C-alpha cells in the first residue's frame, strides 16, 4: 500500500516526543536511519527529520564510513547521552 506523507510541520513538531526513543535505539549500537525507523515503527522519512534535527542540536552524530548500501550510521553523542 502506498504510504501517505504527513505534513512536514506535523512531523517536525514530534521530534521532542521521539527523541528519547531514538536515543534508546542508538544505545544498542550505531544505526542507520532505516534501522532506527524499523526499530521504532515509523516511516524512515519521518525518522530522518527527527534524527537530522537531533544531529543539528548535538544529540547524535554520524560514525565512520557509510555502509555498502550507502547509509551512514549514527550514534548518540555525549550531549545526547547527558
Amino acid at each position, binding site marked *: 500500500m502506498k504510504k501517505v506523507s504527513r505534513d512536514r510541520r506535523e512531523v517536525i513538531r514530534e521530534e*521532542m*516526543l521521539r527523541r528519547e526513543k531514538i536515543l534508546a535505539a542508538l544505545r544498542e549500537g550505531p544505526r542507520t536511519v532505516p534501522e532506527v525507523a524499523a526499530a521504532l515503527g515509523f516511516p524512515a522519512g519521518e525518522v530522518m527529520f527527527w534524527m537530522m534535527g537531533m544531529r543539528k542540536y548535538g544529540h547524535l552524530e554520524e560514525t565512520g564510513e557509510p555502509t555498502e548500501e*550507502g547509509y551512514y550510521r549514527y550514534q548518540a553523542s555525549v550531549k545526547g547521552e547527558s
Partner: protein
Amino acid sequence: MNYDILVIGSGIGGMEAALKLGDMGYRVLLVEKEPSIGGKMILLSKVFPTLDCASCISTPKMAAAAHHPNVQVMVYTEVKEIKKNGSGTFQARLRKKPTFVDPALCTGCQQCETACTVAVPDQFNFGLVARRAAYIAFPQAVPKKAVIERAGTSPCSFACPAGIRAHGYVSLVRSGKYEEACRLILESAPFPGSLGRACYARCEQECTRAGLEGPVAIRQIKRFVADYYYGAHPEPEDAPPIAPSGKKVAVIGAGPAGLSAAFHLAKKGHAVEVFEAAPLPGGMLRYAIPAYRIPREVLDRDIKNVTTLGVKINQGKRVTDLAGLKDKGFDAVFIATGTPRGRKMKVEGEDLAGVVNALDFLRDVNAGRVSLQGKTVLVVGGGNVAIDAARTAMRLGAARVTVQYRRSRAQMPAHDWEIEAAGREGVVFEYLAAPVRFLGENGKLAEVESVQMELSEPAADGRRIPVSVVGTERKRPADLVVIAVGLEPETEYFGDQLAVNADKTIQVNPATLQTSIPFVFAGGDVVTGPSSIARAVGHGRRAAFFIDRYLRGEDLAGAEVEFDCRLPVVSKEEVLKRQESYRDLPPVSKKEILREKPGDFTEVELPLTEEEARSSAGRCLDCGVCAECRQCVATCPAGAINLAAKEAEKEVEVGSVIISTGLRLFPAGGKPQYGYGRFKNVLDAMQMDRLLAPTRPYNTVLRPSDGKIPNNIAYVLCTGSRDATVGNPLCSRVCCMYSLKQAQLLTGVLPLADVTVYYIDIRAFGKGYEEFYEQAKGMGVYFVKGRISWIEEKEDGNLLLTYEDIENGGKLSRAEHDLVVLSVGFLPAPEVRGLFSAEELAVDEFGYIREVEEDVNPGKTSIAGVFAAGSVSGARDIPDSILHAGAAAAQAAAYVERIRGKK
C-alpha cells in the same frame, strides 16, 4: 533628515548599495525583515562560474555593512509605509518586530536553542530540517543574535484565568521535562495538584485542536506533572532566599484566592499572615470539593507550596476588624473570604432539622460528622455543588439520592460529565421539578412536597422561566434535603467599613482589586460571586501584583500593561492554515472508576500514564509557536531573554529610497506533475544548495526519504520558468548555471554518483559560462535534451521520470533516479508594491519593478528618488546584481545631492 538613503532589503544588492553609499559618506539605514542580513546568497554553497565559496564572499560584506560607521542596520524590521514629502525627501514608517532577546546581552551562545522545546521547519534550510522557536537564523548570521518566534499567545494560555502558561507545560511534557513543567505552573499558581483535578479547564475549551478531533487533555497533563513532581518532592524544594521587604500583609481567607495572593506576596519578600475562620486551610478546595475529586493529601501538598515560603496560616480565626489589622502593623490587607453561605430557597420548612445547605453539608462530611446509611436524600439545585453533594451522599451510604432541578437537563449548569458520572453512581435526576415546602414532625424533616415545572415561552432575553404546573404537587418521604441553589458572600462581618454591592460582594477597582479603603484589597468569589478555582487563583495573583506596587509606593493606575504582558491571542484559523493536512490523533479518553453506590471517597479519575501524558502533549499544535515554557529564560547565561518585549514603530525621514528586496523562488509545488512536496526525494535547487553548503542540514548530501547517499541524481531545468502553463514565460537567467554548479559540486562530494541534467537548451551567455558548461561535461555530467513530462515515485523512494527525448526523435522515454532536483525559476517579490502611500510604484507586465529608463538610468523607477537595486527589477546573477546595485547607489547619491541643492 534622519538618513540620506533608506535601503530596503539586505541581500547582496542591498548590502552593496549600502556599503558604496556609506563609503561615499552618506548616512544609510539598511532595513531587513529577517533576523540576519545577507539575503539568499549567504545560504548558497558556492557561486558560478568560479566555484568560490558563497559564504566567503558574503560574510565580509555582511560584517562590513554591520560595522560601517555610516550604515545603520535594522534587522527584523519591516517597512510599513513610505510617503514622499514636498521637499523630495521621504517619510518611512518602520515596524521593529520584537526578538524577545536583548541584542546587547545576547552572546550568540545558542543555549536557548538547545533548551527550547518547540521544533518547527527551518526556513533557512528550506524545510529540510527543524529549528527551534528560539533560534539564530544560521551560523554566519549578522548580527549573531537569537530570536524567539512568537506568533502571539496560544489560545490555551490566553484563556487561563489563573495566568498559567498551559502551552508551556504541555510543551515541556512533550519533551519529557516533567519537573520543569510543574515548576512552570508553580510560577503562576501554588495548586497544580488541585487544579489538575478540579479545574474546569477553559484552556481545553479554547484549544485549537478542539476544532479537529478534540482538545489536548491539558488539565489531565497538569495532574500528571503535579503527581510526578509531588512524587519526587514530597516536600517543597529549597528555594533561594528572598530578601525581606519589611512589609506585612494580612490575608483574610485561606481559599484559592487568599493562598494564591499569599504565595505571590511572599515571593516578593513580604511577611504574610493568613487568617482563616475554618479549622483547616483550603477554602472551597477543602470544604466544597469532595475528596473523591481532590484527595486531601494532594491539597495539603499544594498548600505546602505556600507555607514553605514562610506564610503563616492562622486557622480557626475569623478577622473582621480591618482597622485593627492596620493597628497590628499590617501594611495591607487582602480579603478573600469567598462565598461561604448557601442561599435560602425561601420555602416553608427550610429551617427544619434535616434541611441543610450544600456547603454546610459538605463541611460536616469533611469533618466526619455525617452518616447517611440507608437514608433518602433529596438534593435541590443543578450546579456542580449540587452534583458534588449528591455524589457525596451516595458515598455515605444513602439508599436513594435524588437531584431535583427546576429546569431541563439542557439548562443544567453542572458539567455534562459530572451529571453523567453521578448518574452512573446511582444518583437519580428529576428535571422540571422543585420543592414547594418541607414537612416535618417535631421540628425534624419528614416529607418533601414537590411540584412539576414547565418552561414559559422565551422572554425578551430568550430565557425561559420555570413555572409550576397547578395540581401536580406530590409528597415523598425524605431524611435529608440538601439545598444547593447558590452561594453568597458573608460580608456583613465587615459592617460599614467597606463599600459592598447589593449582592453582598465587595466593591473593588476591577483592575487593581483595591477596595474603598486604599490599604485593603479584595478578590476571588467575595468580589466576583461564585466563580471558578482558576479565576480565584488568578485574582490572588492579580491582587498580589497590585498590593506589591502599593507597598512599594508605586502608582497602581496604568500598571495593568505590566501585569498582563501577554501578546494578543493567536487566531486559530491562522494556526490551522499552517499545515496542509492533519493526521487524525484522537484525544485520550477520560478514565474514571465509576460504580453504583460507591462506598468510599477514593479518587474517581484515573491519572494519565506517562505514555498517555506525552502522546497527549504531542497533539499540541504549538499555536503561539513559542510555548512560553521559559526554558530559554532559565538557560540563558546572559539573562538576555525578555518575553515581555513589545514591537516598536519608528518613523524616519530619508532623502532617497533603494529597494533591493530581491525575488522569490518559483514554488515547485506549482508543477504538481513533478511531485514536489509529495515525493520526499524531489527537492528544489535551493534545498540542494543547502545540502551542498558548508552549513548543510545533514552530514552530507542524503536522500530525505531514508538518509541514503544518492547515486543517480537528475536535474530538471526550467521548472516554473519559460513556462506559460504556470504564467511565467521568463527565463530565470541562472537556473542553467546554478544547476551546472551543483552538478559539478556533486561529482566532487559523491564521486560515484551519476548526475543527469534534463534541459531544453543550455543558456551559457555570461563570462566564463560556456567554459563552465564544457567543464561540467568534462567532469562526467550527462545532458539529456528533453523536458520532463511527469515524475512517479516508486516504493523504495526512487523516481521514474518520463520525458520527451528530443535528440532521439522526440520519443517518450523513462529514466529512474534516486534523487531529483527541480531547477526552479524566479518570480517577483510582491511585498514592495503597496509600500508607497501617495504614488504608485510602477511594475512591468511580470510584476518586477519597472526601470523607467533602463538604458540610460539603470535602477530609476517611476517615483523620483526611489531606485531598484539587484533582482527586484528582474532576475540577475550575482555579478549583475552587484553591478546594478552600484548603479542604483550612484543614482540615489545624485538624487540626494539634487534635493540638497534645491534647499
